[in-house]
């Protein structure tokens, strides 16, 4: 098991390295840097000025060196302005002797956000915390509901209950968040229909605390899409399991119908949806972008949109590192969980 874990973690690190490098290259393309220079010095500077600014702030060196610096495996650049030395690791006016040589994400230096004018780490933690809360509630709603629907529908294939639930699942998966979100806002929180059960914005959730009133709609919007998808997977897997011969064995052993489902069918039926549920985590990040923007909830997705829209290179890079990390970790968890659920796969 340990060997397997080490190997998987090794592969993960390699994957993370490759992915972050790609993102780094894309965010550090020269038009982006030029835009950065112009936003610092003013829009009407000449090309010469742009170049000298880029050179002064260490942006003109080879991409690999810069990537190494950002990562914290290459020494940070040092520059000088009017006799005052400064650099990546040395704030203007600091003591060059005591400044560290390396400062990248490995050392915990994630850089400065140009949009929020604050260190990236501070922003990221706060935003991630908010999104984490949202995700938690989404999962808490999505997983039990979808499994329940899937199992109920799959238990007796072709029954009225099955058809009703399947239709519901297909309808929800077929509706993207930006459609269902808008519909929910119109129906449940605007005066157009007049129900006004829930709040159409989740902005207050971030500041005043979460209530059912301000949080239910965003959670529902994200969860609904996943519910249909997972429920359909569970149903397919459940119907297959219910026709298996070992279910016949269990029935003819005299096991009650309830226990046939609970003890014999369920665990086998959950193997396939489990992977799907774990795959939902990274996918939730993307759903979060739409829903957080739609409901004005200032979490991770909203930050990502702000960073991308405002050419905030450090913040964008940090966001992608987090995204890559989330994807890889959930994959690892899903593999381990899969081994646990399915005894046929055992690591020797």
């Amino acid at each position, binding site marked *: 098991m340990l060997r397997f874990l080490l190997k998987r973690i090794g592969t993960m690190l390699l994957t993370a390295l490759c992915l972050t490098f790609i993102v780094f290259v894309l965010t550090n393309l020269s038009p982006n840097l030029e835009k950065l220079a112009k936003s610092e010095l003013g829009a009407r500077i000449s090309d010469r000025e742009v170049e000298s600014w880029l050179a002064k702030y260490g942006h003109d060196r080879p991409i690999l060196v810069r990537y190494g610096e950002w990562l914290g495996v290459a020494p940070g650049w040092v520059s000088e302005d009017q006799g005052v030395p400064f650099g990546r690791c040395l704030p203007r006016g600091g003591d060059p002797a005591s400044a560290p040589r390396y400062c990248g994400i490995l050392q915990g230096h994630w850089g400065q956000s140009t949009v929020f004018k604050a260190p990236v780490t501070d922003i990221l933690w706060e935003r991630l915390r908010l999104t984490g809360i949202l995700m938690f509630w989404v999962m808490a709603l999505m997983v039990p509901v979808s499994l329940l629907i899937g199992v109920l529908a799959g238990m007796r294939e072709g029954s009225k209950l099955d058809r009703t639930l399947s239709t519901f699942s297909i309808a929800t998966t077929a509706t993207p968040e930006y459609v269902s979100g808008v519909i929910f806002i119109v129906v449940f929180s605007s005066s157009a229909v007049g129900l006004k059960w829930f709040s159409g914005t989740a902005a207050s959730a971030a500041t005043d605390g979460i209530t059912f009133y301000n949080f239910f709609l965003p959670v529902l919007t994200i969860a609904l899409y996943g519910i249909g998808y997972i429920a359909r997977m569970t149903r397919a897997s459940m119907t297959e399991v219910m026709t298996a011969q070992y279910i016949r*064995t269990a*029935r*003819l*052993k*005299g096991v009650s119908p309830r226990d046939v489902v609970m*003890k014999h069918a369920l665990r086998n039926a959950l193997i396939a949806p489990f992977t799907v549920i774990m795959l939902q985590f990274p996918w939730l990040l993307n759903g979060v972008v739409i829903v957080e923007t739609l409901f004005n909830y200032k979490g991770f997705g909203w930050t990502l949109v702000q960073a991308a829209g405002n050419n905030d290179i450090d913040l964008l890079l940090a966001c992608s590192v987090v995204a890559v990390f989330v994807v890889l970790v959930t994959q690892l968890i899903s593999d381990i969980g899969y081994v646990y659920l*399915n*005894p046929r*796969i055992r*690591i020797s």
Partner: protein
Amino acid sequence: MSPADYEGPILEIERLSISFFTRLREIPAVMDFSCTVQPGEAMGLVGESGCGKSTVALAVMRYLGKNGRITGGSIRFKGRDLVNMSDEELRHIRGSEIAMIYQEPMASLNPAMRIGDQLAEVPMIHAGVSREEALRRAREVVSDVRLPDPDRMLRSYPHQLSGGQQQRIVIAMALMSKPSLLILDEPTTALDVTVEAAVVDLVKDLREKYGTSILFISHNLGLVMDVCDRLCVMYSGEAVETGSIKDVFDRMQHPYTQALFRSIPLPGADKNARPLISIPGNFPLPHERPNGCNFGPRCSYFEAGRCDAADVPMFAVDGHDRHETRCIRFREIDWAAPPKVARTTEKAVPGRVVLKMEDLKKYYEVAANSLFGKSGAKKVVKANETLSFEAREGETLAIVGESGCGKSTFAKVLMGLETATSGRIMLYDRDIQSTPIEKRSTDTVSGVQMVFQNPFDTLNPSMTVGRQIIRALEIFGEGKTDEDRRNRMLELLDLVKLPRQFADRMPRQLSGGQKQRVGIARAFAGGAKVVVADEPVSALDVSVQAAVTDLLMEIQRKNKTTLLFISHDLSIVRYLSDRVMVMYLGHVVELGTTDQVFSPPYHPYTEALLSAVPIADTHVQKKRIVLEGDIPSAMNPPPGCPFQTRCRWKSKVPGNLCETEVPPMRQLAEGHQIKCHLPDSELARMEPVIKIAAE
């Protein structure tokens, strides 16, 4: 009345009818079926696939699915009516008083539950005992079914056991609550012969120990004879004959039973002098059954106007013990008359050497753990170890062995689907061992062809039969024009005795036997010199097997083809082959003419194999040799002689020769070789396994 002091028959089925309902029509699966099982009695249900024997078993369990319904008659279990029993009552009977053992052990065990939990569930439901107590009982039963290391077994998952062990677990599960009736539905079809023999042995012993009544369903008459006291022969949804084993086997009173016995290869049958007699025609589909007697159209005693007039009831045969038959004419037929021998043929004389193998080896390298990367050294699986033999023109060489013995690998290497690790294969005078099939010349490809085991999967479902044969002809470069090839295709259909109209049919419109005929036509399309027949009839029903085997022999005789007949069924091998090669774990352990291999001295493995094959003949006396344990994995073969772990003669070899050295191939007689350390004196003392008692 409490069930404990009930004294009548355990199971009484009276005039039972079962139908399946589809959107189109009602399909009667079982009609007017009656049978009684007395306490402690073993009743066999015999018939070909689709005759309704499994439906009867599931009806006893009242498990017919959504579409199935009992439309008439009654099933009484210990005097209680099962047909109208509530679901709740039924649940108390299932698993506690009636238990079932299934065909595929792997599929009938829950893959995600430990064996112990699956076993313990039974007493926990029916006796309401605690988990600890249930597990203790499970442990007891597991050692009763002779499984080694019961504690480890209880902790394992089903996939960690071999097929034979899984079937023992299924049997243990059925015995957990000491049922009064045990239903076995083809319990050994998925197992190897030696494992099958051990399981059957176990069932017989357990029956004595627990006194359970048994309903044993099988298509194998030999097995039924081994296990049961009485049997009931079914044909197309009806019982056609029922009686004691002795009566039905020796004094049969129904033409179908007789035809069935004449179509299976029993000792004494011979392809030249006493060929098998196949049953003409096909099994009727459930909605196309004829009027009157269902067997009428295929029966040689058929009399128009009488047999097809009205439904035939069961008649009791006077003077026999509860012997009944569903034949109007049973009193008029002379049952003792010898069968009309269709035609005898001369034994073909083998010609020159066509195929020659020298020291052929095929090793596979496998990663120890393919799923999670190679955590561990690579292992070598020795699928074929120094194979040497010759096959002559017009000769039938049978290759016999259980699963994992390397017979399929050998076929793959010969066909060119794999290339040999070392050694030589000579086809005439060409080396073909290292030429994969895509590099072989058309000549070689059409010269070495194969007939596959499963005719259902080997025909393209979306191409007409004629088109598929023409396609083979095109590939083999036969015929100059399309017209030529079409004519040749029609000739091939004649050759395999299929009507010419079949050229335009789709494979799904054909029965299993007909599909296999198409497979044979395709194999012979390019005038094959060597045909590898990989278990060509094992997927077919008994009555069709004889016809297909016969056809294969006839074409071989005509074309002087060399036939390599791969099989695990020794009865059919004895019937049709000239020479036999016995394989075990990649080694050829014995090679000789059919007579040499089937009579002593044997290789110890051949001896066990012969003893394991059930023979449906009451005159045959068999020595019982039950092999302990399972076939070792080819990944991890034992040191020394491959068979030493299960050999009962091992003690007769001085020293620990068997454990340390692979025995050399030694010559016993002209053309008879065995791979064994046993000294000549011991070999000479071996007794024949099968004796035919004098009448």
